[in-house]
């Protein structure tokens, strides 16, 4: 399992699936890693690793999408519903 693939699986298992709403909260004082917020918790992720899973930046929030086809995306509406509470309007 190459590094990127291991990270991708770990992120998916922590709930970062296609369509999951993610917010980039802040950068670490030295510029890297990033603090992401999803599904009610915060996660530290290096920029290089964030690239490996193709997190596409949008405004005002971020939609994370693992690299391949969005087979698991049919649960996305529920993910949004669970997430909304943690996001500012």
């Amino acid at each position: 399992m190459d590094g990127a693939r291991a990270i991708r699986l770990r992120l998916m298992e922590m709930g970062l699936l296609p369509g999951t709403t993610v917010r980039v909260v802040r950068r670490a004082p030295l510029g890297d890693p990033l603090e992401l917020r999803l599904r009610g918790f915060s996660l530290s992720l290096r920029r290089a690793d964030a690239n490996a899973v193709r997190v596409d930046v949008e405004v005002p929030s971020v939609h994370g999408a693992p690299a391949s086809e969005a087979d698991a995306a049919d649960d996305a509406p529920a993910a949004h519903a669970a997430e909304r509470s943690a996001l500012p309007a």
Partner: protein
Amino acid sequence: MSSQSPAPRAILIAGNPNAGKTTLFNQLAGTKARTGNYPGVTVDRRSAKVRLGGDSVELVDVPGTYSLAAASPEERIAVDSLLVAPPAAAVVVVDATALARGLYLVRQVLETGVPTVVALNMMDEARAQGLRIDTRALAESLGVRVVELVASRGEGIDDLRAVMGKVAKKPWRERRLELPELAERCVEGVEAAILASGATQAGTSARVWALWALLSLAGEDERDENVVPDAWRDAVRDARAQAATFGIDLEDVIVGARYARVDAAVAAAVSAEENARPGRSDRIDRVLTHPVLGLLAFAVVMYVVFESIYGWADPFVGAIEDSVGWLQELVRAGLPEGLFRDLLADGVVAGVGNVVVFVPQIAMLFLLINFLEDSGYLARVAFVIDRVMKGVGLHGKAFVPLLSGFACAIPAVMATRTIEKRGDRLITMMALPLMSCSARLPVYVLVIGVVFAGEERVFGVFSAGALALFAMYVLSVIATLAAAAVMRRTVVKGPAPTLVLELPPYRVPLLRNLLGTTWQRVRSFLVDAGTVILALTIVLWALLTFPQDPAGEAQAERKAEAAVAYLEGDDLDAELARIDAQRAQSQLAHSAAGRLGKAIEPALEPLGMDWRIGIGVIGAFAAREVFVSTLGMVFGVGEVDEEDPGLRARLRTAERPDGSPLMTPLAGIALMVFFVLAAQCMSTLAVLKREAGSWKWPVFVFAYMTALAYVAALLVYQVGSAFGWGTA
């Protein structure tokens, strides 16, 4: 031996890291908790026998994990606890504020079929955030019992206990994870291979193992390669290839199918107020991870960590050393002169002292680390400093252990436990003995006092001694980071570590958890590393004591008698001390260690050392500062400290066989460089064995550090000599 009592039925306590598992375990177990070790890995296994509704059950605290896929030793243990030795029931602790992530683990546990209770913890925080969770709807959607908890305050514990008692009586019932048709076809092949290998246990089906294998087996990773049959790996490879032809990714499908269930349950159970205010943690993080204030806070906290082992532990260390000295005197005074007395005083008592002396530092460091971890700041330490550590192939969590290495490698090696991945942990613990610990300082002070005694100035401002001392610390940091970077590419190969790390909410740590975890660390050090240190102390004592020197003894005896006859008062005391120092000197030269020192002299000469320094180096294996007292004995001034003018004077006037001075500035620097880099500390090796799980690693550390030290000292002395630097 007709003991028929069956092993008590086990109930596992599983859950995500930071979900409050330890707190819940302590609440349920009370004072009955026991700490052992999982076989083969250095992960603590905490368990407790408790009564539950009249039955005796064994509670087992499974290491915190996000998943049952085997990406780390902790996850591997969680899998084994569930599938290899099936328990009666499982409690999955879920942080109500991170509900979906916790339910993902619940979903995996349910698939195995084990009777399960969900302990929905931190309900107070969830309410404070404006989350409303309908536990009944949650329970119905998942098909599992759910109990609300605030474990830190003991709320809901009785309910949980009652439900656990009921659930533990239920039979196992597997909850199949249904997958889309194409994915099912791929999984079937893996199931068939697993059935054919005959490796599945009763109670868990090939299906569960097949899904596990698909997420866990994918080429090189951290697991023990021997555990999983090759047939499984082949089947997984085939299934992946098949899935690729269908245009699907099995990881996506399996994880997605689980989260579909989880999200349905969350949607059914949770309603939240819109626009929840930014949490308390976020407000704290605005300061603690602020570009300027954050770095300042980081520096202050790290200073406190360092001070705790460097300074605060000092009075306790001193008190222990005094008590050991006092106990040795007591033994010497109370027993007749002889080998047994010496063994007891210089072997056993000194050995126990060598072990106990580390306890204050270990306890201080772990109280602080546990405080930082439980409060949530330790994750921020990694977050703040990760960028720096990344450059040498480590990640942010290696920082605290490395910093602690400046004080003492023993607690520092133990502190690597906060690093999840075994490879990252190994590299950190094998590099950090190069950090210049406090036991090296007496060696530097002695050597600098001897070779830079004058007021030599460099560039008119810096004293040569201070500059040399500073250079040793810089060298140690460079060597540590370079060793880590090299090991990442050689011994512990693998991709540079990633930092997919949860930043848990800030919470007030519970004193009970702090003390409990700290005591576990101290205890495991005393029991496991302590016995090795004690044994090595006795071996070293024997090396310095045997063979004995009867002629020298007799001569000292005669001189002492003569002195008693002719001298009195202070003169007599001074003369007796002189005779005693001579006797020690003669005995040391006669001993195995002394002979060894002479035997290795040819190897040490190119480094600017002679056999007397060689004996000191051998003696320093007990602990680096012992170098000073061993040299004291070698030079016949008795057991003195590094400030002793007598020892300094002897060293300054000591000569080589050709009449040139022994301790030139160059020789002094070569000696200090040797001490920066050499693994002259048996306690470090003992604790490495304990923490790495095998003698292979401490042997490697000893070999690479000794080689490094030798080559570096050789270079310094030879190059310096060639240019004629500091040779007079």
